């Protein structure tokens, strides 16, 4: 049968097999050619098709066995080793199979959920800006999703986590429009560095939302405090009496402080913020801990100066009343201050609010003043009661201060070391991934170009190709081990399992992760580390033959 009269299927089979032979591995190409020739002898189209399918299978088997044989050779070798399996000079000891296994194992470790989380946390810690671009993108994506799905909670989280006030304010308003019960976030998306400011419209919404909460009035007073006193700070600062004079003359500030003192509740919304952070982080673990840190830091805190100045003004007012013989009004004024400081101070301290500690100072001052007032007006028995209260307050503050210092130290010190190991492991991964890639790819390029590199560079290259992937795997394992305590603590924060790390403890954990990052310590330090490591490696490679010769002698 001539070829033009052959059915299409037969011609297609012959043509396909001839094409296949061209790309067939060299070792069995002759056999492939034999099989392709036989196709021309087949007359039945279906038998020809069966012959072709068998040929494809044969091709796949040949490619697989060729690949396996190639993998068993050292990196950079294309032909089998010489007699006795001797390794030619300029090639590493380990086969491609060993090298690939080590690299795949390292990659697998980094692809584990713990590995991915560690990498996300490290990438964020290496960012120079306030927030890593990837973290910002993740929040923007969350906000877009939340708007699409009309999910107020997610949008609220995006608002409190995003570092730019424009978008953050807009998202906060959209979230509140979807769910008015989220109005508290107006107090939790404010801090953008030292000069944060809550818009008046948000403060008004907060006061309407929570009219019995002292905290919202403190925030309202704080807005005035900042607008009046921060310009003075820029001009070199102001004395305490100047501050008190400025604030005493501001009836609006005084009005908000009086409202705060009379309010029956004190809630700084930290708990609500923490619940939101836990919930969203549980739902989406791909957020870096830095995003959570940003949302913790965005909590608005009224400046402690508000409370100190208000305390001073009320004590001053009480003294004036006393001089005018209006002791009852003086007592009322001091009692109001002491009660406010006790109520808000205790709650604030429980909510881990710095103002809680300041309010204790204010309370102590007002009680001492009250004792003086009682003594001067002959109410000695009441003065004694107040003195006992002051003594107890001083004692409990001293006890708390010393235990606070110990807790802080015991919390932070182990994590600082672990943070350092995390950063060192990450750096080792980066370094050894880069040098392994360079040496392996240069060996393979030489193999393709059939060029030969000799001398010291060749020895260094072989050494790195042999041991680089092994060190890379060890560095990946070390990263997982070093990051484990952080991972556990973050998981505990997310799940809310007791003891839940507080927001303050979360910030300490993140500080431990960040303090040894290259961006924090400065690039010079890390360049020194890299130079030292590479020098040590070069010395080892250079002097190893000498040591071997001595040992043999």
């Amino acid at each position: 049968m001539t070829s033009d009269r052959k059915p299409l299927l037969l011609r297609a089979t012959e043509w396909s097999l001839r094409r296949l032979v061209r790309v067939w591995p060299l070792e069995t190409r002759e056999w492939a050619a034999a099989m392709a020739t036989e196709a021309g002898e087949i007359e039945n189209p279906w038998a020809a098709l069966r012959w072709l399918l068998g040929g494809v299978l044969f091709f796949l088997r040949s490619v697989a066995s060729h690949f396996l044989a190639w993998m068993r050779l050292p990196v950079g070798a294309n032909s089998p080793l010489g007699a006795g399996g001797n390794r030619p000079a300029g090639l590493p000891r380990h086969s491609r199979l060993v090298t690939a296994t080590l690299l795949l194992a390292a990659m697998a470790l980094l692809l584990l959920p713990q590995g991915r989380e560690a990498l996300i946390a490290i990438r964020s810690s290496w960012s120079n800006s306030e927030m890593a671009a990837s973290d910002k993108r993740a929040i923007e994506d969350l906000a877009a999703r939340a708007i699409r799905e009309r999910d107020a909670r997610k949008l609220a989280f995006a608002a409190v986590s995003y570092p730019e006030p424009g978008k953050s304010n807009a998202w906060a308003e959209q979230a509140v429009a979807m769910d008015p019960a989220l109005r508290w976030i107006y107090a939790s998306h404010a801090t953008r560095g030292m000069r944060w400011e809550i818009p008046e419209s948000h403060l008004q919404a907060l006061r309407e939302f929570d009219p019995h909460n002292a905290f919202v009035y403190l925030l309202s007073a704080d807005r005035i405090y900042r607008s009046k006193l921060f310009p003075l700070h820029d001009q070199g600062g102001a004395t305490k009496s100047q501050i008190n004079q400025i604030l005493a003359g501001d009836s609006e500030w005084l009005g908000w402080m009086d409202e705060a003192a009379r309010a029956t509740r004190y809630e700084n919304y930290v708990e609500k913020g923490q619940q939101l952070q836990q919930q969203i982080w549980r739902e989406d673990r791909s957020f870096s801990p830095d995003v959570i840190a940003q949302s913790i830091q965005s909590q608005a805190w009224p400046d402690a100066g508000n409370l100190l100045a208000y305390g001073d003004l009320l004590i001053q007012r009480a003294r004036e009343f006393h001089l005018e013989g209006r002791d009852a009004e003086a007592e009322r004024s001091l009692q109001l201050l002491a009660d406010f400081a006790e109520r808000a101070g205790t709650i604030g301290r429980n909510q881990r609010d710095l103002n809680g500690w300041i309010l204790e100072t204010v309370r102590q001052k007002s009680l001492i003043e009250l004792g003086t007032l009682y003594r001067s007006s002959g109410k000695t028995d009441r003065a004694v009661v107040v003195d006992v209260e002051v003594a107890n307050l001083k004692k409990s503050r001293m006890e708390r201060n010393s235990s606070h210092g110990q807790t802080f130290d015991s919390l932070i010190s182990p994590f600082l070391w672990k943070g350092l190991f995390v950063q060192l492991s990450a750096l080792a991964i980066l370094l050894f991934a880069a040098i392994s890639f360079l040496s392996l790819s240069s060996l393979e390029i030489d193999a393709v170009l059939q060029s030969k590199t000799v001398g010291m560079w060749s020895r260094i290259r072989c050494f790195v190709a042999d041991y680089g992937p092994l060190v890379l795997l060890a560095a990946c394992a070390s990263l997982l081990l070093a990051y484990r305590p952080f991972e556990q603590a973050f998981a505990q924060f997310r799940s809310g399992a007791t003891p839940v790390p507080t927001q303050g403890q979360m910030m300490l954990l993140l500080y431990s992760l960040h303090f040894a990052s290259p961006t924090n310590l400065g690039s010079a330090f890390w360049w020194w580390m890299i130079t030292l490591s590479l020098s040590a490696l070069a010395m080892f490679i250079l002097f190893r033959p000498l040591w071997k010769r001595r040992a043999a002698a």
Partner: protein
Amino acid sequence: MGIRLRNSRQTLLLLDALLVSPSHWCHGYALSQATGLASGTLYPILIRLEKLGWLETRWEQETPAGRPPRHLYRLTGNGREWAREELGAARESKFYRQAISEAAK
């Protein structure tokens, strides 16, 4: 470690076909038709037999015009001896008889 050949059903079928006329050179397609083996199974076995030194191969010397030369195969002296032993042992087994009857179908 040298190449080893597993005495699979397919190998025994091929040896049987090659022993039908041991001095005669066979083509791949003819062997495939005689054994029912697909090209993807047949050629890897032929390669192994050749590597073990039990199979001789050559290309056709004279070919009709317009047709490329075909590859030819036959067992070597050692190969024939080994094949007869293997087939003799296999014929005793139920496994082989079953394989032959399946191939005949």
